[in-house]
């Protein structure tokens, strides 16, 4: 005879959300591995594609903005500045786009077997982070090449910038993944947001241009309230700033928002609040996933 099952009757299908994902790390790892395998299935370049795509985008932006629009001249090491913010936004875009589609894409499983559904958006964010890593390595080497040297706060800024985006995108991903089950319109909303987001942070243009042009202080604060702006600036603080000295007309410190670390911590707290909201929304909507899909 089998040992008696644990005491206490519980309602099935009511998990502890992200905590359950943490408890089921093995399953998360397998789902991530599956995503990677399937993504690069029958592909010659495989994971190398995660270099090719940002590489091409980078070259296009570099020539269009750096050379044609002459940002090269107004900003020292423009290529490193551009790439610093760019890799982080790429991480956000990939994670957000895929996370918001993750539940619908795994409909077959969600409808048939109960498992913590948060696994799917979290796994896609994880995959995006795996893609970010080699880009950061390239960025680091590029920064070294133009004179980056270890300095105070560089690594802390990088870690904080990554944390802000990772937490933010997990929260937003959970929310949109759940909403997308009910109305597929949200896929288009996400795509639209991603088009706008690239231009809403000082990534393709320097921060000093914004400060000059933006006008009223409240508008400037609104611009700075975007956690992605802060995160991108943290990456620029980490990889671009230590190697840039600047000229009397364009000193490097003018390009980094003052109190960037304080703002970074505030952005992280804000993202954590969004994550909680995302989780609550997900749990509320989750009850009807199986019948809506």
């Amino acid at each position, binding site marked *: 005879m089998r040992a*008696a*099952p644990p005491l206490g009757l519980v309602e099935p299908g009511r998990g502890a959300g992200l905590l359950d994902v943490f408890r089921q790390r093995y399953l998360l790892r397998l789902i991530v591995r599956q995503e990677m395998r399937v993504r690069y299935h029958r592909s010659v370049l495989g994971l190398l594609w995660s270099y090719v795509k940002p590489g091409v985008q980078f070259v296009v932006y570099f020539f269009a903005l750096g050379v044609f629009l002459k940002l090269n001249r107004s900003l020292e090491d423009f290529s490193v500045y551009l790439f610093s913010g760019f890799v982080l936004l790429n991480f956000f875009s990939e994670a957000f786009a895929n996370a918001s589609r993750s539940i619908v894409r795994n409909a077959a499983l969600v409808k048939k077997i109960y498992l913590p559904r948060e696994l799917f958006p979290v796994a896609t964010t994880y995959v995006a982070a795996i893609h970010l890593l080699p880009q950061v390595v390239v960025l680091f080497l590029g920064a070294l090449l133009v004179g980056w040297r270890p300095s105070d706060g560089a690594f802390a800024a990088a870690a904080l910038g990554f944390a802000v985006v990772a937490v933010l995108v997990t929260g937003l991903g959970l929310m949109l993944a759940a909403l997308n089950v009910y109305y597929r319109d949200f896929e288009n909303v996400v795509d639209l947001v991603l088009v706008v987001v690239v231009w809403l942070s000082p990534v393709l243009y320097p921060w000093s241009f914004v400060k000059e042009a933006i006008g009223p202080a409240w508008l400037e604060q609104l611009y700075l309230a975007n956690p992605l702006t802060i995160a991108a600036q943290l990456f620029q603080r980490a990889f671009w700033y230590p190697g840039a000295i600047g000229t009397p007309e364009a000193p490097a410190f003018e390009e980094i928002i003052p109190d960037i670390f304080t703002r970074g911590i505030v952005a992280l707290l804000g993202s954590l609040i969004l994550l909680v909201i995302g989780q609550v929304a997900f749990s509320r909507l989750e009850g009807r996933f199986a019948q809506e899909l």
Partner: protein
Amino acid sequence: MTAVIQVDHVSKGFVLRRGRSLKEMAVLVTKGRPLTDSFQAIHDLSLSVEQGETVGLLGLNGSGKSTLLKLISGVMRPDSGTVRVRGHVAGLIEVGAGLHPDLTGRENIFLNGAILGMSEVELRRQFDSIVDFSEIETFLETEVKFYSSGMFLRLAFSVAVHTDPDIFLVDEILSVGDGPFQDKCLARIQELSAEGRTLVVVSHDLDTVAKVCARGVLLETGHKIVDGSLEKAITRLRTAHR
């Protein structure tokens, strides 16, 4: 004895939206048709299953059997009433739901096993046994999409019967594969039941259900009609529809 599945006054309905886009809705409104249809799958149903029981859920298509199974597994939540379970619930709501066509047999064993709640240690310990049972050794490194339907089902079933749930739910899967494999599956299910696991089986194949289940619950349009011995439920099912 202790109840492991406790279903109290559960109702479950579905709302079928006829149109979701603005255009479709506008058309329906102008024609004066309702925007939604509702359908009640389960009406105020109560059921208590003790540990080690073997229950066959019977009924015609659309009687609410599969919905009830999904409520017990946690995939769906009831509109009213409560469903509570004790211990780990697993099973096959549909064969192969967790199999990924682009992954190999070996990868699928690990992924599907983990989805059904097995730990890494358990999977490594059971791996050889799963492969033996499924009889697909030579195709272990082949992607599952190249499997024949029989091989696919054998792999899925084999993983499922190696999980270690307290409550095992089986939906219409006893008709898996050829004769010898079906016998093997039945034997394995009887073995699981003999170990003291609780079994809830949905099947239209009454002979098969009779081999594994002692208790029968007959559903008709979401109502519980019979709850007693399996023979009683089968007799009622046969007389009602002949």
